[in-house]
């Protein structure tokens, strides 16, 4: 049994033993039932960097006004990241000098198996059936493990709020989706650089677009497999995703798959501490017992071996002694016979 499986089993045992308080980490089992989840396809070759998505996001999510207005495009000259006041931002990249720039919209990618949810021990993050990764501020303890766990560096924190700080990130406009509306950014995009729909249909559209425009796109849909797959998908013009600031080396394994075994074991270990200790005691006891038995056996074997050897040696010695005594007797007999033979001659005298 592998260590991870062992810990996993312990974890499962712990969950059943502990009194109803479940701190189960997200695992692949959570998303298998979401084949109809929604997503957004972002086509970087269509984005013109107008920041309408940023403005719409700001409005629908009732976020505070930024320092510079959204129609100020000089903002794009600085590479930015998401912060507590903006769920999404657009950055400008120049993959090839002298060629037109390429823009990339950045927001939560809504992982199919979210790292933030697996890192959260109070389940403040949940993968919703719509595909959105949603946040429940009421249970959040503010540990900010989610921010560390996110492979895309998306969740941010309201550091300026003293009493009720929240973790802030894109919600895929979950409330709007539930009303049958489009996410704010998608609706605002003048070029349909953002397309909303079922993730599996978006994948078809993405690949069709790549195939129909031979040579224009990188032949890859970012998010199809990255970190186990994301509901937000990206296609980009050549030369590469790295040229527009995207990590091409994230791998295809989801964060929970990498960590859930060990993370799930954490509360479990606490829950069945006595069992564990008893178990360990029992194991060490058993080990001792076995060791004792083995020792006994070894001693017996050694004794047996030694006595066998001794017996053999004795037999050999006895045989030798017998032979010697035989020789001796024979010699004695011979002597006696010789003496006897001689005796009549000399005996006549005696």
């Amino acid at each position: 049994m592998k260590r991870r499986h062992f810990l996993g089993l312990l974890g499962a045992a712990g969950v059943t033993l502990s009194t109803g308080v479940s701190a189960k980490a997200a695992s692949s089992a959570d998303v298998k039932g979401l084949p109809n989840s929604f997503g957004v396809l972002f086509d970087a070759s269509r984005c013109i960097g107008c920041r309408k998505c940023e403005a719409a996001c700001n409005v629908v999510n009732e976020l505070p006004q930024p320092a510079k207005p959204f129609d100020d495009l000089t903002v794009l000259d600085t590479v930015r990241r998401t912060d507590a006041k903006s769920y999404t931002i657009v950055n400008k990249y120049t993959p090839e000098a002298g060629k037109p720039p390429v823009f990339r919209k950045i927001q939560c990618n809504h992982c199919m198996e979210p790292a933030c949810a697996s890192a959260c021990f109070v389940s403040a993050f949940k993968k919703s059936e719509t595909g959105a990764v949603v946040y429940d501020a009421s249970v959040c303890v503010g540990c900010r493990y989610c921010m560390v766990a996110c492979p895309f560096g998306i969740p941010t924190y309201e550091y300026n709020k003293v009493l009720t700080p929240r973790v802030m990130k894109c919600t895929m406009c979950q409330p709007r989706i539930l009303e049958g509306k489009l996410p704010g950014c998608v609706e605002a995009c003048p070029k349909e650089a953002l397309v909303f729909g079922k993730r599996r249909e978006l994948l078809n559209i993405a690949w069709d677009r790549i195939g129909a425009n031979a040579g224009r796109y990188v032949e890859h849909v970012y998010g199809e497999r990255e970190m186990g797959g994301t509901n937000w998908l990206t296609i980009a013009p050549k030369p590469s995703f790295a040229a527009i600031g995207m990590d091409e080396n994230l791998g295809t394994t989801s964060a929970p798959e990498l960590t859930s075994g060990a993370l799930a074991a954490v509360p479990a270990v606490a829950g069945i501490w006595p069992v564990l200790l008893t178990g360990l005691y029992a194991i060490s006891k058993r080990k001792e017992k076995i060791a004792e038995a083995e020792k006994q056996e070894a001693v017996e074997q050694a004794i047996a071996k030694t006595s066998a050897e001794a017996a053999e040696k004795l037999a050999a010695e006895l045989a030798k002694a017998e032979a010697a005594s035989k020789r001796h007797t024979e010699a004695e007999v011979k002597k006696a016979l010789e003496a006897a033979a001689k005796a009549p001659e000399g005996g006549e005298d005696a």
Partner: protein
Amino acid sequence: MKNGKRRIKALLAVLAICGMGGLTALPDGLVQADQQGSDKLRADIISIDAMQAYGTLSQPKVVFLHDKHTTALGKQKDLYKKECGTCHQSNKDGAMYLGFMRDDAPISGDKLRDVFHANCIGCHRDMTAAGQKTGPTDVQCKGCHNATPEESSNWQPLVVDKRLHYRHAATQEKADNKCGACHHVYDEAAGKTAAAAKPEQVPGSCTYCHGETTTVVSGRKPEKIRSLRLATHGECVTCHKATAATGKDVPTGPITCAGCHGPLDQKAIADTSMKKVAKDADLRIKRGQPDFAMVRPALAEKPALDAAGKPIKPYGMPPVPFDHKTHEAQNETCVSCHHAALTSCSEKCHTVAGAKEGGFVTLETAMHKVNAGQSCAGCHVTAQKRPECAGCHTSMKKGVGDVATCGSCHVKSDSLDAATAELMTKPADKSTATIAAGLAEKLLATKRTTTSTFPTDDIPDTVTIGSLSKDYEPSVLPHRKIVLSMLAGMKDSKLAGAFHATDAAVCQGCHHNSPATKTPPRCGNCHPAVESPVASPRPALKAAYHNQCMGCHVAMGIDGKVVDKVSGAKPVPAATDCTGCHKEKKK
């Protein structure tokens, strides 16, 4: 303390100035590097790596600057009376070997290394002894074997375009051995090459026989066919040099590396060609080609059989009438299309079923492959990348997208069908060439030569796009101006004329995927006004407009630029210039 502060301030100022100097110097350096003739960017770099043939190199390749050495030779006429012979040996006929200080006989690795070391270093030492500036003389390897040379190459391949060919041909106008000065054919009986004096004897481009590397054909005499590099340097450079030696100020070609391969020199040659060749000069390279031809599969002697032994049905497509003369005018060399030989494409290589000689590329693929520059469709797709075409064609399907477009090339005409059918039963040879040419010319006469559309008055002057107006006022599209400027862009293109076959064809650049009529359906018929939460590859109306307009402006390279010639003209709005197309609504 005060002094110290002042000193630091001064130091900072100096550093800042130096830093700025560095920054301003940098672009200057880059600009210079772009120019040929700068010492760092050269067309004469020869990487001496001949030792690679004998195993892994133990030292970095030597970056040898050929022009630098020939210039040095020119300056030292007293020391080097042998000129090229200083470094290059010649055979008994006087033909120069291109290798350094050796003939073309096989040589061992050790010997070759010694040839380089002894002669390079030897010459440098002689020069030093004569008190001249010269290359490395010591035994330090890195003097020559430098892994990080300062120089980089701007070498360009050389293309003998039609004008340059014309200028060469003009020099031989009166000679008996006209074409034979350069062109030769392999004479099997004589076991050597013979000059091809007449145009019809010329087998075509040098590349047909002289490949990238020297080829050896066993049993042939001579066995070796020089690589293109050896052949061109052996013939062109020696001829230029010999011509120069015939007298003072005799016009001749370059003999230095940069002279042929340097970007600036190439431009100078092209400019001279434009000046020297008369505008009405007949630039055609005559190889006995027809003005018109029919492109069709070769007629098999025996009907081809399929796997079951049944005869394969005849090729069903009508042949393609082809204006060879016009296509010649659009291309610089025969190789643009005839990439391997001047003979028929379909005879041996690109047969209907595909043949080993043609890499199993079938006739259909050879003519329609979009990403092959020598195929019909491939070359036409390249032409569509011109800015005046790219506006519409970037977003269109490339190549033959629809069976409805087959007839653009496979032209049919009811009155000529019988004659065409008869031609298809005869082999393509001299006897049918005239019939084919006549037929092709007649069929092509049915095609347009220039692009035209509906009468100007029938083209709506402006179109107001306002159905979606919310934050912005409706956009007023200068519809007629756009159509007329598109037409102006293709007015000289026969290609555009032939393929924009109907009056409505140019309309379809924007009014796409719908019936080609004078009154195309409204965009909103297909593109919904409201974005739906169901993903669709077809954009909603707002994105359809924006993608269409901006996509075209960007592809044509006119976004944000003033294209109208009238004074005070506004630029074509850039992508994020929202108010350039529609004014913001007053709130």
